Every structure is written in structure tokens, then in C-alpha cells.
């Protein structure tokens, strides 16, 4: 069998003396699927950048050893130039990789780069296949998260490469989007393509993976298909509803919202009531209005009609600091959250405004954060950035915390820690609103669940919520 990838690397990193990977030895045959796991910041993305030659050719990093990608050496400049002919890559931050303004242009860009003939017809066919033909010429910024992911996937496979690399393909996707990704991956497998997937939700790909590898402590280890440390078990008991004194903390009454006078309504007659100490999950497809609802609860958007009360107050009538005492919004993209130049300054600022002392916070911080106190928060990995936003929110001590996609990009250990943290905060009366697609949030943390669909919000039981989120993927498993 022909080898698709052969890696024998002693050491690799972004600068000498600061290695990210060592002793990486891996062989992938043509047609195999490799599932690559590992904690946040362990070096999974670096591994991808290394095997594609980006690390040493574009990012001035170093690689000691050899990498063979089919019959080319991607570490050499000439080999690196040929890499795009062999691979298709969807990066973790897929929103950051779209270069053109419309889906059609994005697909054509790949085809024109590689000199593919009949590019226009081919692009149209691919857009049709990925359900984007009717949006071929719209601005990409108007696409939902799921549609953008599909676009990245389409633009990376349109030239029919032999190896596909998908860095956290299901992150931020609703279950229907996850199901689509699973279908695409399965189709690639059937067509004999080689696939490398990095994931924090590995159970989706366990069934179809040929090899599983874990990157931990800078090293890649193979063959841990049955390891419980890294493979998240779906059999988590439903949590018991806590007995507590119910005090209304969030109330929305017949709220209507739209972004402009000509736009259609995002929310229509939305009413909900949340009590102190509750962990409330809000679920719904990509683009259904979860973030909008979260921003209304956080006082960042003002509805066109209806009533909103947070801890008894109308949020947009409050001064910023008063609003912060009542509610804080943590965006899906952690880069937006930071306002200071170092991690320490971020924590200090939060302590200055908040209810916890900096010394008390520092005592309980993870060692990796303590090591990076003088670094810019923007230099942390995606998962680390997200975790830092949660620590900052905790220091502020707001009564309500609105999390947008809280588990996206977090590894298994941090997800577990996050659930424990939610429980602890709930006991102290802090209310968490979780805008999520992740079934694990419902299984482990949610007291109540609201579903938002076609602009309407209704409450469902936690069990129903779990079924709604699980159904698309479980049906897929059943069908395949």
C-alpha cells in the first residue's frame, strides 16, 4: 500500500529552544483515517502546520527530521510549493481562512490558483453539492457558522486532493452541521481518500478512524483507541436538579428583535424566565438567534418591543459598571474579550472592578496560566484564551454570566473543569446562560433548556434537549 504520510521528527517548534513537538513518528497509509487527539495547546495544530511544511517554510519555525507527503518532501521549498496539489485543509479558525467575498469566488480562487480547467462549472457543481448554490454570490459575512464551515470544506476539496486535513471540524457547529461533516468525511473515506482529523469531541469519529493518536507532553503516541483518558464517554448521568431558593433573575416578556428596519424579525414574542443559581442552556441551529438572545439578556442589544429585566433592572438603562455587576457576556471568539496587553493586567483589571481579590484568584490558577502571566493574552492557544475569559468573568462576580459556545475549543479536561465550575457557581447563586450546540453541556450542567427556532423560544425538558441534539448524529451512526 502506498504511504500517504511518513513522519519521523525528533523536534519541531516555532523557535529554537522552545520545542512544541518531539519524537513524532507516524506512518499513514493511503485511504486511512487518523484521529488526532490531545489537550488544548498540546500541539495538534502545530503538527498540521509541520506536516504541510508551513511551520518551517512560512512561519520561520524549525523541524529536525523528515516528513514525506506522498512523493514529496514538504519541508523543502520546492516540495512545499507542490503541497496544495496533494492536500485540502480546513483550519481550526475556519472563519479566518476565507479570502474572498462570495462563496463562488472562494471556490474559484482555489481552482484558478491550481490552473484547473472549466473552473466556473466545477465551482458551481461543488457549491450545489454543499448546499450553497443559492448563496453563491452573497457576501460570505452573511453566511451562518455552519455554512462558512461547509464553504471552507468545499473550497479545500474542490481540486480533488488525496489527503484531507480537518482541524476540529465540528467546533461551533449545531448537530445538523456535525452530521453533515460526518457525511462528508464518510464520503471521502468511501472514495479512498486519506483523512486527518483533530477533535475534542472524538466520539463522532471513533467508529470510522483507522488510527488514533494523542499528542501530550510534546510527544505523539499512537494506538489509544480504547483509552478512557482521552475518549469522552457518552454515558454521563443526568445531573440532579439542585434544591434552591428560586428568585427571578432574568425575565424577558414578549421580546421582538430585528437588526434593521428592513430586516426580518430574529426574535418574535420571546418570553423566558430564569432563576438565580440556574444553569440554563439555549439550543438551536446555527443562525437561529441564540447569540442575539444572549446579547439582549446581556444588555448589549435593545429589542424593538417587549420587556427585559435583569435582577430587576432594565439593562440598557444601567451604567456600564452597574450592568457589569448584574450580567457579563462572554463571546464565542475570545480575542474580542481582551482589553489589556498581558494576562496579569487582564486579571488585575477584573479584580479592580470585581468581587474577588487578585491574590485569591492567582492561588487557584492552573500552572500554564501562571507561566504565561507576562505574555499577551492573544498569544495563548484558542482553548487557553477561552479559559482565561472564564477566569476573568469569575473575578468580575456578575450575577448572570452569558456564555456563547462555552465548550468549543476546550479539551476534555477543561470541559470537565468547566462543568464543575458551573456547579460551584450555581451553588453561590450565579446564573449561567449557556448558548450551545454541545450535548455534553446539557448532559452535565443544564438545569433547564430552551430551544430557539424560527425566531421563537420554547422550554423543553433537559432530556428532550439532549435528544434533539443527539438525534442527527445518532441517526447518522444508525444509517452508517
Amino acid at each position, binding site marked *: 500500500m502506498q504511504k500517504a504520510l511518513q513522519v519521523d521528527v525528533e523536534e519541531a517548534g516555532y523557535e529554537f529552544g522552545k520545542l512544541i513537538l518531539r519524537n513524532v513518528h507516524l506512518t499513514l497509509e493511503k485511504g486511512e483515517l487518523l484521529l488526532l487527539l490531545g489537550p488544548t495547546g498540546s500541539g495538534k495544530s502545530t503538527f498540521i502546520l509541520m506536516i504541510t511544511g508551513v511551520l518551517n517554510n512560512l512561519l520561520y519555525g524549525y523541524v529536525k527530521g523528515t516528513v514525506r507527503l506522498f512523493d514529496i518532501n514538504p519541508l523543502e521549498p520546492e516540495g512545499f510549493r507542490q503541497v496544495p496539489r496533494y492536500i485540502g485543509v480546513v*483550519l481550526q479558525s475556519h472563519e479566518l*481562512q476565507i479570502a474572498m467575498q462570495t462563496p463562488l469566488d472562494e471556490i474559484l480562487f482555489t481552482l484558478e*490558483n491550481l490552473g484547473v480547467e472549466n473552473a466556473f462549472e466545477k465551482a458551481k457543481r461543488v457549491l450545489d453539492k454543499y448546499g450553497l448554490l443559492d448563496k453563491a454570490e452573497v457576501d460570505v459575512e452573511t453566511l451562518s457558522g455552519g455554512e462558512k464551515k461547509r464553504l471552507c470544506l468545499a473550497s479545500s476539496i474542490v481540486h480533488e486532493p488525496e489527503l484531507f486535513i480537518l482541524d476540529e471540524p465540528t467546533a461551533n457547529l449545531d448537530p445538523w452541521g456535525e452530521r453533515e461533516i460526518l457525511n462528508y468525511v464518510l464520503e471521502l473515506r468511501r472514495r479512498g481518500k486519506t483523512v486527518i482529523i483533530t477533535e475534542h469531541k472524538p466520539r463522532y469519529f471513533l467508529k470510522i478512524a483507522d488510527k488514533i493518536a494523542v499528542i501530550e507532553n510534546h510527544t505523539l503516541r499512537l494506538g489509544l483507541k480504547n483509552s478512557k483518558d482521552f475518549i469522552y464517554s457518552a454515558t454521563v448521568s443526568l445531573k440532579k436538579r439542585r434544591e434552591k431558593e428560586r428568585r427571578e433573575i432574568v425575565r424577558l416578556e414578549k421580546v421582538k428583535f430585528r437588526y434593521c428596519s428592513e430586516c426580518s424579525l430574529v426574535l418574535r414574542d420571546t418570553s423566558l424566565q430564569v432563576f438565580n443559581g440556574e444553569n440554563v442552556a439555549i439550543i438551536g441551529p446555527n443562525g437561529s438567534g441564540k447569540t442575539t438572545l444572549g446579547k439582549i439578556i446581556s444588555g448589549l442589544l435593545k429589542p424593538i418591543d417587549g420587556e427585559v429585566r435583569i435582577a430587576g433592572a432594565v439593562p440598557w438603562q444601567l451604567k456600564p459598571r452597574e450592568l457589569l455587576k448584574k450580567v457579563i457576556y462572554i463571546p464565542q471568539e475570545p480575542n*474580542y474579550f481582551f482589553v489589556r496587553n498581558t494576562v496579569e493586567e487582564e486579571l488585575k483589571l477584573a479584580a479592580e472592578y470585581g468581587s474577588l481579590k487578585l491574590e485569591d484568584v492567582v492561588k487557584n490558577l492552573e500552572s500554564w496560566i501562571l507561566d504565561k502571566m507576562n505574555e499577551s493574552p492573544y498569544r495563548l492557544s484558542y482553548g487557553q484564551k477561552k479559559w482565561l475569559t472564564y477566569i476573568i468573568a469569575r473575578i468580575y462576580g456578575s450575577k448572570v454570566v452569558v456564555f456563547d459556545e462555552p465548550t468549543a475549543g476546550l479539551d476534555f479536561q477543561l470541559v470537565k473543569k468547566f462543568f464543575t465550575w458551573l456547579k460551584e457557581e450555581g451553588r453561590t447563586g450565579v446564573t449561567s446562560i449557556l448558548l450551545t450546540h454541545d450535548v455534553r453541556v446539557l448532559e452535565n450542567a443544564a438545569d433547564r433548556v430552551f430551544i430557539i427556532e424560527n425566531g421563537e423560544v420554547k422550554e423543553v425538558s433537559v432530556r428532550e434537549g439532549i435528544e434533539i441534539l443527539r438525534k442527527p448524529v445518532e441517526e447518522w451512526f444508525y444509517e452508517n
Partner: protein
Amino acid sequence: MKIKANPSILFLYGLTLTILAFTLRKLNPLAFSSLLNLSIGLVLGFRKYRFLIAAFLLSLVGVAVNALIFAGGEPVYHIGCLVIRSGAITGFIEVSLRLALMFSATLIFSSLTNPRDLLRSLESELGLPKQVSFTVSLSLRLLKIFETDIREIQAVRKSRGLRTTPITPSDWDSFLSPLLSLGLERGRWIGIATELRGFSLRKVKKTCLKLGFVDFLLLTLMLIQVLASLLF
């Protein structure tokens, strides 16, 4: 009806306006070019680029403050303890007109083309290196993203109890840091993704400029403004 122009002509037009903004010394031709292009730019891009217009107006406040503090000349007005000198008025008008000219070049340019057409036209018709063409075309796409970034940063600042509109140097620092950081990160990942999608393999075929009515109109306008700058 959607008005479209040849991206290369637009590029040349924008470049000419920018050069005029930096080189014109006399106020009359500067005012003529600025007001003419500002009117065209606002008609074309008012709906699509409101945030750019807001940013331009905000920059005028900065220009005014700067002129009040640093300009010399005879005192012209006294408003309370504030003394407005003649240099402040002429300085403000001159710098505002230069900014308006560059700003209107951006508005006209971004309203009449899209990144892919621009890329193809610059590399094939004007013969610019593909890396330069790609960078220019990418900036068009980033304009829209920039708007989203600003909105999100403002939302989070409000949520963290900070001013949504930066006023003090510290505000500006904390406002611009995420913006720059996101820009750098986006640039880095777009660069990586572009390379992995075969940009270095891209072959450029030279083609001739194809001009339409709008292009001839732009060229005529360009000529008039250059002549005006030389004659007056």
C-alpha cells in the same frame, strides 16, 4: 442597477486621488477634488460603508482638536477660555480636505468592485505582482470584517464596564489591541490557507484592459482633476 468599473481603472483612480491628497498645495483644487469625490463616494457607498463614514467623522474630531492645540496665527474667535487662531481654521480645513479625498477614494474603490475581480484585473491587466494584487484585493474583504470586529469589541467593552467609544489614550490602547491582534491573526491564517490552496502555483495570463462607459467616465474625471491641480 449595479454599477461596475474595471478594477484596474479604479485602482489607478484611487491611486491618483491619494497622490493628489498628499501633493496638492493649493486649497482650491484640493477642495474641488475632495468635494467632487466625496459626493460620488457618499452616493455609491453610503448604505454599505456607514461605519467608514463614522470613522471618518471621528477622525475629523481628532483633526479639530489637533488644530486647536498646535496651530499658530492670530486669534480669530474667543469662546470662553478657548482661543481659536487663524492657523487652526486653515489647518483644519486643509487636513480635512486631504483626509476626505483619501476617504472618498476608498469609498469609490470599495463600492465599485469585489476582491476576486480586483485580483484578476490587477495581476492580468495591470501586470502587478500577484502578491501585491492579492494584498490589495484582500483589503476589500477585510473592510467588512473590520466593521464586525469593531461592533463585537464595543459589545464586549460595554459588558466589561468600559467605554464603548474610546476617548483617552488608554481607551484607544485597549480598543486597538484586540483589533490589531485579530487583524494579525487573520492575516496569518489567511496567508497559511492561501498558500495551502496553491497561491504560489498561481499562473497569471496577461490580458488587455477592457473598458466600459464607467471606466471612461473615471478616466475623464481623473484627467480633469490632474489638470485642475496643475493649472490652478
